């Protein structure tokens, strides 16, 4: 008689590897062990395909159900779920797509969608208050640092993958066309959440670099110097207005301030 743990481990091997010999002796002979394990395997795999589809709806639409199903089944073998929380399942998909040498666009699209998935459920933060904005205007910039919103992600890609993401949104008109292959052109975006809805906004290269710098706790004076070095005519007020409107900044802090 197998112990409970032995039964569970043998059954788990059957589900993941498709083998059933180790668990067959524990299953009542009235039922075919092969058929029982195969049925559970099928049900569980379907659960995972659905979970990945929910996390990666655009990738799934882009490649179609058949190819996505193949990817999902390969992913399930390589990365079994390690949590009872299915929101975490799928976090290795961008790396998996790279390892299996799928077209680079797919791995980059997956990277963008995982960022969207994280942003969708990231912590809330109240909008910047009038007092904080006043602080920004009046304080010594060398004393000011910023906090980026938990519901924001900065990403850069070797091509404008966000065009595919935007074109395949359910509300995008069906006659929207994206020419493939995408041009080789470094593209920066910020993923944010406005009114509960995730949005992807392209950023100028310098804006992206400055936000990345701000996210590391660098003070506003240093950020401005970096901006001017990158672009002597850089319009810092325009930059701040843009990122504040996008809700990328959730906090302004003044060293030794009130």
């Amino acid at each position, binding site marked *: *008689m197998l112990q409970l743990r032995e039964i569970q481990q043998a059954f788990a091997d059957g589900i993941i590897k498709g083998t059933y010999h180790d668990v067959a002796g524990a299953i009542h002979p009235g039922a075919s062990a092969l058929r029982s394990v195969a049925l559970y395997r099928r049900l569980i795999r379907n659960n995972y395909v659905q979970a990945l589809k929910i996390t990666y709806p655009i990738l799934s639409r882009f490649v179609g159900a058949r190819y996505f199903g193949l990817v999902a089944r390969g992913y399930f073998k390589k990365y*079994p779920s*390690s949590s009872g*929380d299915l*929101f975490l399942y799928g976090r290795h998909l961008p790396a998996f797509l790279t390892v299996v040498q799928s077209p680079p666009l797919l791995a980059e699209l997956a990277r963008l969608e995982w960022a969207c998935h994280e942003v969708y459920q990231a912590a809330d933060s109240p909008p910047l208050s009038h007092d904080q904005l006043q602080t920004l205007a009046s304080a010594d910039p060398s004393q000011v640092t910023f906090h980026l919103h938990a519901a924001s992600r900065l990403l850069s890609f070797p091509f404008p993958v966000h065009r595919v993401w935007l074109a395949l949104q359910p509300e995008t008109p069906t006659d929207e066309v994206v020419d493939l292959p995408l041009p080789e052109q470094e593209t920066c975006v910020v993923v944010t959440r406005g009114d509960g809805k995730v949005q992807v906004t392209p950023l100028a290269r310098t804006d992206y670099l400055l936000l990345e710098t701000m996210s590391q706790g660098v003070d506003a004076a240093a950020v401005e110097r970096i901006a001017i070095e990158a672009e002597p005519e850089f319009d810092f007020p325009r930059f701040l207005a843009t990122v504040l409107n996008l809700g990328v900044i959730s906090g302004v802090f003044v060293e030794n301030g009130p």
Partner: protein
Amino acid sequence: MSMHNSAPIPAQAGIGLRSHHFREILDAPPPVAWMETHPENYFGDGGASLRVLERIRAQYPLSFHGVGLSLGSTDPIDHAHLRKLNVLIDRFEPAFVSEHLSWSSVGGRFFNDLLPLPYTSESLDHVCARIDEVQTILKRPLLIENITRYLTWQDSTVPEGAFMAEVVRTTGCGILLDLNNIYVNAVNFGLDPIEFLSAIPAQAVWEIHLAGFDHFGRALIDTHGQPVCPEVWGLYQWAIHRFGPRPTLIEWDTNLPPLSVLVEHATQADAILGGCHAAAS
């Protein structure tokens, strides 16, 4: 002071809350007595789903029906999962917190499905200790739901109903009785559903689930994607007669119909519950 509708869940029909119906529910709250949701769908730190749940919770009593705790697993209890659950319980004050008499993980591998335990004395001791541990951490009794299974373990020596009754006696938990699961198992394995129900102590039944199934070859699969079948409605009448009126959930997770279909099912359950209330008075 709690901002929630703090009434307990009444012995009336409720519906499963799914994001697909959020907009419809917010625009025109349906005439059902309560709602139930999977807490794992709200494990994120923020975002729109949590805000919607706050609004719905302000109007309806709520129950949490967990699917990710893997109560019967021989791995250690997932304390990170329990912490997230506890945070949600503090925030939303559900009247019931339920889980399944099953396992879904071993060796750190999770299947996110409800897998059957062998009904043995070893399993009984194990699962009772786990339920005790969870109830201590959550500081409240759990409801434990019977599952569907697509195999029978060779070493199962205790009938499922008797196994559940013993779990209740040992741990003080309640039972969430899923009548569709009993029916599906009965058809797939040639069992007598009344035998199962007869083994369950009436006072242990705190909630009932009604759902639908799909056919897969000759087997029935518990998909929660079809209307409640006439045979399960018949079992429900039998169960309500035996156990008395109980909070009853219309559970629908896949192939989701319009909200009105769930409400129609809830109305049908309420009619049966109403008949029982009337007979008792």
